[in-house]
């Protein structure tokens, strides 16, 4: 039973109350109702959500780096404007998610501290470098595509603020994926060199994208409990399979191949079979030994430290003017 641990943390006189709260919580989750910030919830549910939302928020923030790397070298003004809008969206997504995490009583400063000190993780995918312009396309198509596959079910997550943030994010991710696909298509139909560049990017991003769904179901530490709590709606392997099935025809339309000799349609299963994933690589990157782990965190810390004077100045300005009243009377419904 999911709630056994929560019981033990309460004194005996509270057991009845706690048991009643737990029944109400379990019933709400079972009935597909949403849990809201001030509702009673098991400590482990709260901790799981904070961990997941923080990791998700950090991923959006760190995820700005690999793409921002190409803003100054975008090949046209159109592509540059698109890429800036996309990177700005990633910042926005991070902020929606931090806000959602804060509803559970964990402050923004604490979340940022934990990112900067490496105590909370972000998605491993962002520890790979963006070597060419085509990588911007591959990230949009594959990385954002995998993210969407993961995130659409989260719009029905049992925790209200998280689900609401995800609805907003999913709407915006669709643009991200389509601009990436269009970018790759332009390269794929371009000169032989451009086509080769697109293929090379897909070759490098395909496998890390499949790893984004997390370890196989039988090794996934948190899956079963998260499914019971309806934080998670589908297993890692199920979502990975869905993503592969979606990508195969899209790759054909692009005129690019996916770098997996074992990839073929399985009539019996009604799905594509695919080759084994190199989980040793996944674990290495997770452990901090990916190509860019050090660079990403260093850059993040530097940006935070170099922005300190701005935050201080704004706070000082606000303090100086706090005596004055602002414009009032606007808030009439």
């Amino acid at each position, binding site marked *: 039973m999911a709630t056994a641990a929560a019981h033990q943390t309460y004194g005996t006189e509270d057991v009845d109350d706690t048991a009643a709260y737990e029944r109400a919580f379990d019933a709400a989750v079972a009935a597909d109702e949403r849990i*809201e910030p*001030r*509702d*009673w919830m098991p400590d482990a549910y709260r901790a799981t959500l904070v961990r997941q939302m923080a990791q998700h928020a950090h991923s959006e923030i760190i995820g700005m780096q690999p793409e921002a790397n190409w803003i100054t070298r975008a090949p046209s003004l159109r592509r540059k404007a698109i890429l800036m*809008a996309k990177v*700005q*969206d990633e910042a*926005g997504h991070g*902020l*929606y998610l931090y*806000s959602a995490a*804060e509803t559970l009583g964990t*402050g*923004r*400063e604490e979340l940022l501290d934990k990112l900067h000190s490496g105590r909370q993780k972000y998605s491993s995918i962002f520890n790979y470098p963006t070597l060419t312009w085509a990588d911007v396309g591959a990230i949009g198509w594959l990385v954002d595509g995998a993210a969407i596959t993961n995130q659409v079910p989260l719009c029905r997550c049992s925790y209200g603020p998280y689900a*609401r*943030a995800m609805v*907003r994010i999913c709407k*915006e991710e669709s643009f991200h994926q389509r601009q990436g696909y269009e970018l790759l298509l332009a390269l794929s139909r371009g000169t032989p060199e451009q086509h080769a560049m697109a293929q090379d990017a897909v070759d490098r991003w395909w496998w890390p994208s499949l790893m984004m769904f997390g370890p196989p179901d039988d090794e996934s530490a948190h899956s079963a409990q998260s499914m019971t709590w309806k934080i998670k709606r589908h297993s890692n392997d199920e979502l990975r399979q869905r993503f592969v099935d979606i990508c195969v025809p899209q790759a054909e339309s692009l005129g690019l191949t996916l770098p997996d000799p074992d990839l073929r349609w399985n009539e019996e299963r009604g799905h594509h079979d695919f080759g084994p994933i190199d989980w040793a690589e996944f674990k290495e990157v997770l452990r901090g030994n990916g190509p860019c782990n050090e660079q990403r965190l260093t850059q993040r810390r530097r940006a935070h430290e170099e922005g*300190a004077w701005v*935050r*201080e100045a*704004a*706070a*000082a*300005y*606000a303090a100086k*003017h*706090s005596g004055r009243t*602002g414009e009032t009377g*606007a*808030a009439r*419904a």
Partner: protein
Amino acid sequence: MTNTDWPLWEVFVRSRRGLSHTHAGSLHAPDAEFALRNARDLYTRRGEGVSIWVVPSSAITASSPDEKDPFFEPAADKPYRHPTFYEIPEGVKHL
């Protein structure tokens, strides 16, 4: 270093004229003016709004979820407040 924890603001957006402002989310900002600007950048990047309110989160008083049953109970036993409570003969129109 000074304390630079910016307060939390709740953001309400009117999506178009004729509709009420609806809660969109929250953000941190040092003052109301920054809160408005940040809210514009964060919650209306695609023309989602024509008007924004920002309210310090600390200024909101909320009903307690623990008391939700007793608090809303007065409404629960008054079905006669709903039009469907009344039986009207068939054929009577515009009622």
